[in-house]
């Protein structure tokens, strides 16, 4: 059992959760994720380890409410236990001194970006971070990102905070201005697709972190498979980070919609039961 030590809401739908997981806290690196199952009847969902403290034996998750499982998780309270937490899963991010690195994070994609930015900085890179969201309250982890980046640029679709515009506009600004040696783009699939089309124009090697549907997270089921460079890869064991230019984005987005009907029905049902209780 893994106890929730701390919870902080960035907005109604996004929260940071600090969780007891001593073994994982010791062995995790930037880029790793965990799979959690809330209770006996819960599903297994993958979440990036945004941070960890080996001394305290805790890991940090940043979770956005998108459906039943994430809603149930955000409804937990400090002191509650999570039945299953397994990890660290996936390959750690490949970190080296590239020179200048552009890190573009959208939505909760900023959470997995945080440990990467931190590690890149420690490896001696100049890190320029672009944080993007639809509106001001969806911009998360700004202070943390400022602490590890040389520069942080903020983009909102509606201009309620930072500059008005899409993440790609912010990325273009940076690339026009100075030489960028490497890019990381993490966020919703559509944002990663267009973000990497932008870097491709300038031939900047780009890594993305894919968030496909998963079950076990250990390579056993193939639910997470996508085509990378024309070959089928399992995101949980071969990734989650891949060369952005090799990803078959259309296939990946189709696969992420596999359970749309079921997810939607389940969420409606969940909202009803929550309302009844309230």
């Amino acid at each position, binding site marked *: 059992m893994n106890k929730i030590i701390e919870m902080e809401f960035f907005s109604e739908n996004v929260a940071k959760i600090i969780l007891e997981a001593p073994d994982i806290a010791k062995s995790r690196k930037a880029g790793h994720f965990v799979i959690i199952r809330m209770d006996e*009847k819960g*599903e297994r969902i993958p979440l990036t380890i945004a941070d960890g403290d080996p001394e305290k034996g805790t890991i940090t998750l940043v979770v956005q409410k998108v459906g039943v499982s994430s809603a149930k998780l955000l409804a937990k309270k400090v002191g509650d236990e999570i039945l*299953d937490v*397994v*990890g660290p899963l996936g390959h750690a991010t490949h970190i080296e001194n590239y020179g200048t690195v552009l890190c573009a994070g959208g939505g909760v994609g900023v959470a997995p970006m945080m440990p990467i930015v931190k590690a890149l900085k420690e490896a001696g890179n100049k890190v320029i971070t672009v944080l993007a969201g639809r509106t001001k309250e969806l911009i998360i982890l700004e202070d943390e990102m400022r602490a590890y980046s040389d520069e942080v640029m903020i983009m909102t679709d509606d201009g309620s905070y930072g500059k008005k515009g899409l993440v790609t506009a912010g990325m273009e600004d940076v690339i026009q201005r100075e030489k960028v040696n490497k890019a990381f783009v993490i966020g919703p699939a559509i944002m990663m697709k267009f973000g990497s089309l932008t870097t491709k124009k300038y031939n900047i090697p780009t890594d993305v972190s894919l968030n496909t549907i998963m079950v076990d997270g250990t390579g*056993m089921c193939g639910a997470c498979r996508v085509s990378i460079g024309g070959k*089928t890869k399992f995101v949980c064991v071969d990734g989650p980070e891949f060369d952005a230019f090799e990803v078959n984005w259309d296939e990946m987005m189709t*696969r992420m919609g596999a359970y749309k009907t079921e*997810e939607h029905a389940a969420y409606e049902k969940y909202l009803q039961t929550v309302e009844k209780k309230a």
Partner: protein
Amino acid sequence: MENIAEYIKEGRKEAWRAELRKSMKPKERTSLERVQMREQDGEERSHNSMEVNLGLTEQMAVAESHRCLDCPQPTCTIGCPVGINIPKFIKKIEAQDFLGAAAAIKETNALPAVCGRVCPQEKQCELNCFYTQKLNLPPIAIGHLERFAADYERNSGKMAIPEISESNGIKVAVVGSGPSGLAAAGDLAKFGYDVTVFEALHEIGGVLKYGIPEFRLPNDIVDVEIENMRKMGVKFLTDFIVGKTASFEDLREQGFKAFFVGSGAGLPRFMNIPGENYNGIFSSNEYLTRVNLMKAAHEDYDTPVLSGKNVAVVGGGNTAMDSVRTAKRLGADRAMIIYRRSLEEMPARKEEVHHAQAEGIEFMNLHNPVEYFADENGRVNKMRVQKMELGEPDASGRRRPIPIEGSEFDIDVDTVVVAVGVSPNPIVPSSLKDLKMSDWGTIIVDKETMQSSIPDIFAGGDIVRGGATVILAMGDGRKAAVGIHNYIQEKVAK
């Protein structure tokens, strides 16, 4: 093998056995009919997840045991990969000492209730039975009798917890809780070791839990075995991936003196044909895991599964049979097997093929998929298959299927399950640089001791054999337990 033959011969001399042999003439025995397993009606059971086979009654078991001739050279035992003393346990049943029968099986088989249900008896003990070999009659129903004895013991409430040597306090780790890991853990506990089983998933049991469905092997049966091992002092840690959550080195530092790796052949293979990544196309592992481990078919569980009306399952093994019969139970109107060889050559247990047929599963043998098509949402809606014919025998001794050019046609499907085999789980090997591996990704071990190229690491089951059977995995686990015991004793003695 020498000593097994000796042990089997000795038992036969006992007075009670000689007495029983004399109680009935061999002619009378061979004239008896083979018992028929009671089972749920085919139509009815194709809509529920209850066990298909209902077991033998005491009368049925005793009647069947009378058929066994208690042969001087019991060839059945040669067919058994762990050398169960088959005539001894069958004669115990004839003597109506059912608990004694269970004890006799347990001398060599740690999980008889499981093996009685899932072993391919028709290729092992029953194939080698005197009845099959020399009399051309149906063999003794050895599998059914094994199941009977084990179930009798479990239901009697007198399940024997094996005797355990005095604790020696030496820590041994078992990686993976499939049949090989469970067998190794059980024997190591008997030898007095402090055993911890590490399991990556949230459930103990490996394929027995996430793969083989309830209608063939109810989870309760596996759970009883696990509970007994807990009583023997074995510790189980779920959600723990050795090589990820902690390394072997970390565990050595925590005092583990040896390891048994039974991490299985968990990686699903696909065929790499066009359209295979459309929605609605699953590996059998994903399909079965969603249903068995995550209970996706239950209303109140959160995990979803796509259960179609037209389901095609590609493959001919136990995994394919389990998937197609699961699809039927999830409400498919049409559930079919697409297999590139003939019906006779399907590697699945014969009983499962018969059961599937009785449940209305369609068999399209000598067909192979070549491409998939999807609707505008990316959900599979058609598969193109090609007809095959049989050519010369290949390395496996079976005739090679050859595609017939121009024979392609399309079938409407909304769900496809790909059950064409699995590869060894790479997590352990990739975390150990010095571990010697075969070209197929299996761990190379000494056949007697099951020791790998790293002295404190032993391995068995599917991670060593590729894909095998429950009984072979279990046998490996037991051999490895002896190997580990000798290894540690030698080191301690030094």
